[in-house]
């Protein structure tokens, strides 16, 4: 099958998954035992008001008609109004997305700058004490609940050592100075020309991002280690060694490049998983992002917001996975697109 054919198949699979997800979420959201319209308007509202509100939200009529209405609205990007904030859900999501992407991107950075070197070091000291210590650390990171890591970091680096603030994105002192243009605090503080506020934004980011990065760190360490070991046994690496090239050059120039393909795949998948970890970390650090918004909507049975957040997570998740497939197949032509294995 040609590349284009593969790509089209993969894309159609992705769209089918998302369609399936929309059906699944429709089923979940309409099983809600509470009356969402009543919940939104409060006990004081009259029956007519509740009826009218339910009609506006597309909550009346037979399920089939409700589904058609639900899909129509999803396709035009109309997610309705949040019962909690009274804003259109789409507006809420757009306002809160930058905070979440900033958090998971910095966490992703930590995963790379800590995970990959640890994996390489472990591979170079295979079987030794360093390797074992790294292995234990990798195990620990996949075994520890992220909320626990978050809390311990707050306790140690926030309360006891008092190095970092423990909640929020920016100290209130800078609240007026910084103009929200992009929603990315690191960018906005620079645009506002306040370097002090910029550093403050970093200080707020470091703990939650580091705690979040732990959830995927173990995987990155282990895959880097095993692919480095894999590559080092290859003939062309033996050849560079026979030429007498220094080992730092072999590692950095020859091994790493080839060992990086499996690592890249895992890294990409981890980026999507960080979004899941954010649902816990944003709660621990009162981080005003999409995940915290999602949790609040879940706790208050805010149907429209739940549908919006879950669809958004699904779209991001599926898209990132597709991009990872495309990248690793572009880097290594021997790798087909994942959909072909079927």
């Amino acid at each position, binding site marked *: 099958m040609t590349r284009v054919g593969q790509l089209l198949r993969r894309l159609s*699979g992705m769209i*089918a*998954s*998302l369609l*399936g*997800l929309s*059906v*699944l*979420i429709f089923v*979940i*959201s309409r*099983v*809600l*035992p509470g009356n969402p319209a009543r919940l939104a308007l409060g006990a004081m509202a009259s029956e007519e008001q509740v009826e009218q509100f339910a009609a506006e939200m597309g909550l009346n009529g037979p399920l089939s008609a409700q589904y058609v209405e639900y899909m129509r609205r999803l396709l035009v990007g109309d997610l309705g109004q949040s019962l909690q904030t009274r804003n259109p859900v789409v507006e809420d999501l757009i306002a809160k997305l930058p905070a979440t992407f900033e958090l998971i991107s910095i966490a992703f950075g930590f995963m790379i700058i800590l995970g990959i070197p640890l994996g390489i070091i472990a591979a170079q000291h295979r079987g030794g004490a360093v390797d074992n210590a790294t*292995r234990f650390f990798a*195990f*620990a990171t*996949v*075994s*520890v*609940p*992220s*909320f*626990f890591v978050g*809390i*311990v970091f*707050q*306790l140690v680096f926030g*309360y*006891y050592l008092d190095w970092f603030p423990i909640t929020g994105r920016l100290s209130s002192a800078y609240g007026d100075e910084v103009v929200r243009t992009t929603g990315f605090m690191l960018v906005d503080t620079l645009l506002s020309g306040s370097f002090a506020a910029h550093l403050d934004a970093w200080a707020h980011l470091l703990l939650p991002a580091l705690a979040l990065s732990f959830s995927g760190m173990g*995987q990155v360490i282990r895959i880097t280690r095993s692919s480095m070991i894999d590559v080092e046994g290859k003939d062309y690496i033996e050849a560079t060694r026979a030429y007498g090239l220094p080992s730092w050059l072999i590692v950095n120039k020859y091994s790493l490049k080839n060992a990086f393909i499996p690592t890249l795949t895992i890294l990409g998948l981890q980026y*999507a*998983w960080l*979004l*899941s970890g954010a*649902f*816990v970390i944003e*709660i*621990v650090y009162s981080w005003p992002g999409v995940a915290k918004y*999602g*949790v609040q*909507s*879940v*706790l208050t*049975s805010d149907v429209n917001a*739940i549908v919006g*957040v*879950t669809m958004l*997570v*699904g779209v991001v*998740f*599926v898209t990132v996975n597709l991009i990872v497939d495309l990248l690793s197949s572009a880097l290594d032509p021997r790798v087909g697109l994942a959909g072909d294995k*079927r």
Partner: protein
Amino acid sequence: MSVVGLVIVFAIIVAAVLAPYIAPYPEHAGTFTDFTNAFEQPSLDHPFGTDDVGRDILTRVLFGYRIALTLVAVVLGIGVPIGVMLGLVAGYTGGWVDTIIMRITDTFLAIPPLVLALAIASAFEPTLEIAMFAIASLWWTWYARLARGLAASQVDQEYVQAAKIAGASTPHILFREILPNCLSPLLVKATLDAGIVVLTGASLSFIGLGVQPPRPGLGTMVANGTQYLPTEWWITVLPGFAIFVLVMGFNMLGDGLRDLFDVEVEQ
């Protein structure tokens, strides 16, 4: 390391089963209050200290392990058989049956399990049972995928062909011939998964959609303790550490089994 894992998991299972007999203060597992002994630091009387209403935290951790292990048993007890059955059928028969089953699993895999479990749990009153149902209802998908791959790889094996020619029925071939040859990857996957189920359940409880107070869910206890940080740290930290130890045990055991059986399992 895998032996350590086995010891940890075994010890915790025994302690959880025997919790009503070995816990220092079994009555503290529920609504018990004793405000004169609230916020006690860890001591000989209370090795993990006491919480905001004077309950012994070690006792509650042991009962919390009961809840966590029950969750694992229910989720895997429902998810593994359903997933394996669907996966074997899909992989063996192929065609449109395969397409339909795999399309459904793809749908579930299009979103992280924690997020989907949150959405499902949101439709009901939050309880442990709902959390179990929410997690179990989506956990079968990984086993369906794994079993499908295993079955598809076995279809052309000689022993399957021989059974076919001998006139064996499809269920016989699936469950008596193919399944026994797929057990080790499934066992490894289930062991590694047990840890992830514990983490998912603890996260749901931490967020407030799982075990509700006064039941001693480990994640619930951590969430409840955070309001007393940093001074009364043990109320939060020790139950959190208890989750870590159990999951670590499952992961070390699963990793050891993976090496032992020499199988590749995607995580």
